[in-house]
């Protein structure tokens, strides 16, 4: 029995003396491949996992509580800290929900820029996935190659908004800045170079015997499990269910863009790895189309909705009434109408949506962040039993969870 004292607390969930010969081990929360702060309590029979219990909450910051105490514009930078690998996707999901609630029309140039940023973030996130997943499985060089390309993509983000990780590059009602001079050229240069790099990764991994042995038939998620657990994104499409919110419930410009949704019916980590590679290629395709679209748009960046959105800077500095409205919007905040909105978006990790209940106040009455990784962590307790301890790391890596949004 445990004898808890002041310096040695009672370890719940851990049995040090057991009748059967299973062993309970504690995985994380400081494990290098726990992708942040995941603690798994694993019960092992030999090398086989009999029972797994994900324990989360080590990165809980009370984002939803903060949202209830902040005006809407103020909360937007907080969303950066949810899925910090692809911040713009969170900014966008939140801005999209608020825009839907107040019924805003975003100018076309802002839409083009937003969609570009979203896809660029998807590439950044997928490269990060590939790098860390490969590192977890043991392919060190891929980590270096993928991080190099990710660095170039982040340079592009930095050139646009000044930040590399916490972008806040999308605002409610549009985007704050137009693309800088020469940005599209650097983007297309990046897009020209990326396919070669992706080919390099695929040459190194796809037919690699070790890679296939480690990934094939590991982490099987059946379609029924995936639907029941509310999996989304690649976890869902990797199980043979074709559902991409960009295609099925299009938002922004995705309706006009020509791209495919790769689906795999392998249901395992290898299939999901292939999907990540294919999605990056699709993102390149989308970005190329957006580069074509950009010059045709009128140079307006923020929606015209004086009740909710501040006027452009020139107007604020020249017109008294615009300045007054800006002052009210900054000090008191916008007041969306009463009602509830749930706006799903396809973030790189899956379905990211914000449910906002507004009571007509400048603060959200309740904001629920539907984070894909939360449920992808939950499914671990069902897919880990029966696998081997060596595969646990692969499976965690393959779910691509980020703890900023699991714990919120």
């Amino acid at each position, binding site marked *: 029995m445990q004898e808890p004292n*002041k*310096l040695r*607390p009672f370890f*719940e969930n851990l049995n040090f003396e057991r009748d059967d010969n299973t062993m309970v081990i504690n995985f994380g929360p400081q494990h290098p491949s726990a992708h942040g702060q995941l603690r798994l309590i694993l019960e092992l029979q030999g090398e086989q996992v009999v029972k797994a219990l994900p324990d*989360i*909450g080590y990165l*809980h910051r*009370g984002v*939803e*509580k*903060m949202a*209830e*105490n*902040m*005006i809407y514009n*103020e909360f937007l930078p907080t969303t950066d800290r949810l899925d910090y690998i692809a911040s713009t996707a969170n900014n966008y999901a939140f801005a999209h929900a608020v825009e*839907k*609630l107040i019924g805003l029309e975003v100018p076309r140039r802002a839409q083009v820029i937003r969609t570009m940023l979203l896809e660029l973030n998807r590439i950044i996130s997928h490269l990060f996935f590939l790098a860390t997943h490969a590192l977890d499985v043991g392919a060190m060089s891929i980590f270096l190659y993928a991080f190099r390309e990710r660095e170039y993509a982040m340079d592009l983000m930095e050139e646009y908004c000044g930040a590399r990780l916490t972008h806040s590059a999308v605002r409610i009602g549009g985007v704050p800045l137009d693309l800088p001079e020469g940005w599209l050229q650097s983007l297309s240069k990046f897009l020209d170079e990326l396919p070669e790099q992706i080919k390099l990764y695929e040459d190194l991994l796809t037919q690699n015997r070790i890679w296939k042995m480690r990934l094939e038939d590991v982490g099987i998620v059946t379609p029924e*499990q995936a*639907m*029941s*657990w*509310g999996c*989304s994104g690649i976890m869902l499409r990797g199980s043979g*269910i074709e*559902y991409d919110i960009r295609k*099925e*419930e299009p938002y922004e410009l995705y309706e006009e863009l020509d791209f495919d949704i790769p689906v795999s019916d392998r249901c395992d980590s290898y299939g999901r790895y292939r999907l990540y590679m294919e999605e990056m290629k699709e993102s390149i395709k989308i970005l190329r189309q957006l580069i074509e679209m950009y010059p045709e748009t009128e140079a307006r960046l923020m929606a015209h909705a004086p009740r909710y959105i501040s006027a452009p800077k020139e107007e604020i500095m020249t017109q008294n009434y615009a300045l007054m409205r800006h002052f009210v919007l900054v000090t008191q*905040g916008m*007041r969306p*109408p*009463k*009602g*509830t*909105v*749930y706006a*799903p978006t396809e973030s790189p990790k899956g*379905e990211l*949506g914000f*449910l906002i*209940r507004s*009571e*007509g*106040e400048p*603060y959200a*009455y*309740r904001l*629920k962040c*539907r984070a894909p990784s*939360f*449920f992808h*962590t*939950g*499914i671990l*307790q*069902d897919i880990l039993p029966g696998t081997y301890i060596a595969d646990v790391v692969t499976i965690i890596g393959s779910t691509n969870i980020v703890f900023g949004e699991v*714990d*919120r």
Partner: protein
Amino acid sequence: MRRYVPKDNVQKRAKYNDRFWVAPQVPRLAVEDEHFVSVVRNVSAVAKVKDSYVELGQLVLEIEPSDNIAVLGNLRDECGYSVCSELSAIDYLAQDGEFEIFYQLLNMKERKRLRVLTRIAEKQAIESITPLYDMAKFAEREMYDMFGIYVNNHPYLKRIIMPDDWEGHPLRKSYPLEGDEFASWYEVDKIFGKEYRDVIGPENRDPARIDRYDTKRFARVGHEVPFGADASLVDTTDTPIEYSSAPLSDYQGGQHKVLEKRK
């Protein structure tokens, strides 16, 4: 920005309040969509639907809390809502003494979403939907953790995000944003015991706090030494922080130092 309440006088009312502001309402449309009409018909057959309307393109069904399994089971098996994307609660305890629980569902074939709403009293429990949707294994735990809503027949109803021995439910409106007394002393109470609260003191309980008189750690704010000097030999009496203590304008006397200097 925190909602502003004057600390010295809580009763004080804001000088400006928008008495005539009436918040508009997001339009709640009648159910006309063919698919949604059939859903409402289907659900009405198994349980009482208190209200149904379409809000921003998504159907909203208000039901009795005791019917949640029947309604969600019907929606999943008959109407094709095979995915439950989210489930949680909204705190209306102060207004009505109730929680509002929502289930956000998705129909992949029809590409439609709907929301099932139900209200329960504070001490009332709700039936778990884990037999229908596995995601409730996690989501209902979170709801219990954050709001203290008991879920009947949940396989493992324990706190998920907060520690197991936590007191209070953080997302309730009655829970203070900065945490309560239990929260602020949590680590001290747990590691050393309650009697050590006085020994440690409020200034040491927060490990992220930077003390400007702390000479042991890196933050020697207020105790800086000249570059290259041995810190032990330097007089470590407090260096005052140099804010401009002398006001530039003497409003009382009507003297403007800056202006006078310029003259």
